[in-house]
C-alpha cells in the first residue's frame, strides 16, 4: 500500500508536469518561450511529449502491476471473508464487533436484528442456539471491483493507443477521397452549415457514402454532425471541422489545362510543369485590407471574396498576393483563377475497438466505488446468555461511530 500511494502521488506529479509544459513543440519553440537551457531540459526529459514518455509509461505500468498483484492476492481472502460473513460466527477466533446490547428474549433479539436491516436471520443448528444475519456483503468487494475497473480502463486506453487507426479526410460535396491506407473510399454527398438567429453556427452536417475500394457495390451512407458520429464498416466517422475551398482553373496559352478543387492550405502542381506549385494559403469571404498588418475577413458570408495565394517555382517563392474575386493570375503562359468559394468538410475516421474496453472499465470502476462507499457490509449475531437473556453483537467495519449510534438507537427501541 505504501508503494501504491507513492506511485499514485508520482503519477499525479507526472500529469501535473505534463500539463504545465505545452506539449508537442520543437526545441526552437521552447527555447523562444523559455530559455535554451530549459528547452534542452524539456527535450532531455521528454517533457515535450510527457504522456507518451518512457517514464510516464513506466509509472503507469508499475501502478497496473501493483494493482493486479493486489487484486490477485486479495481475491481468495475476499472470497473467504465473504463466506465467513455469510455463515454463523465462528468461536475461534471470535469475530470482532463494534456494538452490542442485551435483549430480554429471542423475540426481542430478532426484532433488533430486523431493525438493523438484517432480513434473512438464520440459526446455527449445532450446540447452543445462535441467530446470525448479514447484509450488503457485496460491499466487501467494492475496492476490488474498483481496482479491476481501473485495470480494464488503462488496458483499453493503452491497447487503443497502440492499435488505433486514425485518418482525416476532407473535401467539398461531390468529391471522392481515399480513407488513408485503409482501403476504403469516402464520397462527400453533401455538407451543410446551420446557423442560429444571431448568425453563429448551430451545426455542421456532412452526408457521406463509404465503400471498400474492392467492392463499390457494398457502399453504405450515413450522416455525421458534431456530437453525432456515425459508424460504417467498423470505423467511426466524426464531423471534425470545416474551412474554405474553391475551384482552381489553370489555362495554358488560353486553353483549359486543369480544373480542380482546392482547399485552403492545399497545394497544386501545374500539370506538365510540376516544378510550378500554387498554394491557396487563405480564403477571405469578406476581405478587408488592414494597413501594416495581415488582412481580415469582416464576416463569414461571401461578400467580397479574396484569395491569398503563393506560387513557387523549383521551391523558390515567385510571389504571394491576394486575388480579388475571379481576378486572374498570370505566370508565363499560365493563367490561374480561383472561383466558386464554398466550405469543405473535414471528417475524422477512426477505428479503435478498445474504446469499448475502456468504457467498460470506467463503468466497472464506478460500480466499484458505489459498492465501496454506499453498500456498507454489516453483520449481527445473537446468542443466549445463561440467564435467558440474549446478547446481540453488531459488526460494521466501515460504519464507525455512525453504526454504533444506529445500533444503540435500534437497541433503545427494544427497551421501550
Amino acid at each position, binding site marked *: *500500500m505504501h508503494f*501504491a*500511494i507513492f506511485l*499514485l*502521488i508520482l*503519477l*499525479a506529479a507526472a*500529469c*501535473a508536469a*505534463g*500539463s*504545465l509544459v505545452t*506539449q508537442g513543440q520543437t526545441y526552437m519553440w521552447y527555447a523562444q518561450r523559455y530559455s535554451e537551457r530549459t528547452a534542452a531540459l524539456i527535450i532531455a526529459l521528454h517533457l515535450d511529449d510527457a*504522456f507518451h514518455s518512457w517514464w510516464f509509461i513506466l509509472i503507469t505500468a508499475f501502478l497496473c502491476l501493483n494493482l493486479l498483484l493486489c487484486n490477485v492476492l486479495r481475491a481468495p481472502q475476499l472470497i473467504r471473508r465473504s463466506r465467513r460473513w455469510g455463515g454463523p460466527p465462528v468461536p475461534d477466533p471470535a469475530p470482532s464487533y463494534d456494538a452490542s446490547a442485551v435483549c430480554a428474549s429471542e423475540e426481542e433479539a430478532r426484532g433488533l436484528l430486523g431493525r438493523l436491516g438484517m432480513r434473512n436471520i438464520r440459526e446455527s443448528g449445532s450446540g447452543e442456539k445462535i441467530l446470525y444475519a448479514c447484509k450488503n456483503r457485496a460491499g466487501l468487494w467494492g475496492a476490488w471491483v474498483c481496482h479491476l475497473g481501473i485495470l480494464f480502463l488503462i488496458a483499453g*486506453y493503452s491497447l487503443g493507443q497502440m492499435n488505433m487507426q486514425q485518418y482525416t479526410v476532407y473535401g467539398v460535396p461531390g468529391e471522392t477521397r481515399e480513407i488513408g491506407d485503409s482501403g476504403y473510399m469516402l464520397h462527400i454527398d453533401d455538407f451543410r452549415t446551420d446557423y*442560429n*438567429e*444571431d448568425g*453563429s*453556427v*448551430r*451545426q*455542421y452536417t456532412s452526408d457521406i457514402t463509404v465503400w471498400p475500394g474492392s467492392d463499390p457495390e457494398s457502399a453504405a451512407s450515413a450522416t455525421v*454532425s*458534431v*456530437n*453525432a*458520429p456515425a459508424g460504417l464498416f467498423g470505423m*467511426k466517422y*466524426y464531423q*471534425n471541422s470545416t474551412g474554405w475551398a474553391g475551384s482552381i482553373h489553370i489555362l495554358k496559352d488560353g486553353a483549359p489545362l486543369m480544373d480542380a478543387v482546392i482547399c485552403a492550405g492545399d497545394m497544386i502542381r501545374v500539370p506538365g510543369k510540376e516544378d510550378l506549385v500554387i498554394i491557396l494559403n487563405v480564403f477571405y469571404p469578406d476581405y478587408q485590407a488592414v494597413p501594416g498588418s495581415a488582412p481580415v475577413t469582416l464576416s463569414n458570408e461571401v461578400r467580397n471574396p479574396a484569395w491569398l495565394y503563393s506560387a513557387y517555382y523549383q521551391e523558390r517563392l515567385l510571389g504571394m498576393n491576394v486575388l480579388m474575386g475571379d481576378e486572374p493570375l498570370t505566370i508565363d503562359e499560365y493563367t490561374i483563377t480561383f472561383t466558386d468559394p464554398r466550405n469543405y468538410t473535414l471528417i*475524422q475516421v*477512426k477505428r479503435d475497438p478498445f*474504446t469499448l474496453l*475502456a*468504457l467498460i472499465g*470506467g*463503468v466497472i*470502476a*464506478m460500480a466499484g*466505488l*458505489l459498492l*465501496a*462507499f*454506499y453498500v456498507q457490509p454489516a453483520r449481527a449475531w445473537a446468542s443466549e446468555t445463561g440467564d435467558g437473556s440474549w446478547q446481540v453483537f453488531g459488526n460494521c467495519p466501515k460504519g*464507525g*461511530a*455512525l453504526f454504533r449510534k444506529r445500533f444503540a438507537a435500534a437497541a433503545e427501541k427494544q427497551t421501550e
Partner: protein
Amino acid sequence: MLRIENTLFTIVMLIYFAAMILYFLFIAVKRDRLAEIAVWLQAAGLILHTAALICRGIGAGRLPLTNQYEFATCFAWGLCLVSLLFVVRFRFPVLGAFAAPLIFLVIGYAAMQSREVHELMPSLRSNWLGFHVSTAIIAYGSFGVSFVLSVIFLLRDKMKAQGFMDRHIPDREMLDLISYRSVSLGLLFLTFTILTGAIWAERAWGSYWSWDPKETWSLVTWIIYAVYLHLRIRRSWEGRSAAVFAAIGFICVLFTYIGVNTFLPGIHSYV
C-alpha cells in the same frame, strides 16, 4: 425570465451573506439559536438559488451549465446544497459557518462574470454535457465541504480549548467519518464527471482522452482523492495527512476550474 434571474441572483447573494454573518455571530456570541436561523436562511437561499437557475434555464432555452458565470453560480449552488445536507445530517452548524465564506466567495466570483446568454457552439450541443457538468457541480460541492472539514480537522485542537466548540465539533473519529463521506460522494461524482466528459469528448472531437490540461487536472484531482482514501485505510496517520490530502485535492479542484483556464488554455477554454 433573465431579468427575474438577475433579481433573484442578487437576493440570493444577500441571503448567503446574511447567513454567513449569522453563522459567525453564532460562533462569536455562542448562541445555538443563531445557528438554527442561519441554517434556515441558507435553505431559503438554496431554494431561491434553484429558482434563479430554473429561470436562467428557461430564459436561455437550455441547461444553464455552459459558461463561466453559469458554472460559477452552479458551483455555489452545489456547495450550498452539499454543505446544507451535511450540516443537517450530522447536526454540525460549525461546518455551515466554515462553508459559508466559501459559498459567498464562489457566488461573488460568479457575480463578476459576464451574464450574457450566447448561443451554444456545435460541440456544446450535447446531452452528455448536461450529465458532465451537473455531476461536476455535485463533485465540486462535496470536495468544497471536505476541504472545509479538513480545515476544521486541522484547527480542531486549537478550537477545542473552548467548551462551546467542544460541544459543537465532533470528535476525531466522527470528523474523519464525515470527511470520508464527503470525499466519497465527491469522488463518485467526479468519476462520473470524467466518464461522461470522456464520452462527450469522443462524440464531439473523436477522441475520448486527449491530455488536454483540464482533463489532465481532473485526473490529478481524482488521483489526489484516491491517495486520501488509501491514506485513510492505513490507520497509523491519525487523520492528519488524509486531511491534508483532502485540502490539496480541493486546491486541485480550484486549479482545474479557474487556474487551467487562466494559465493553460486548451480545448476546454470556454468553461
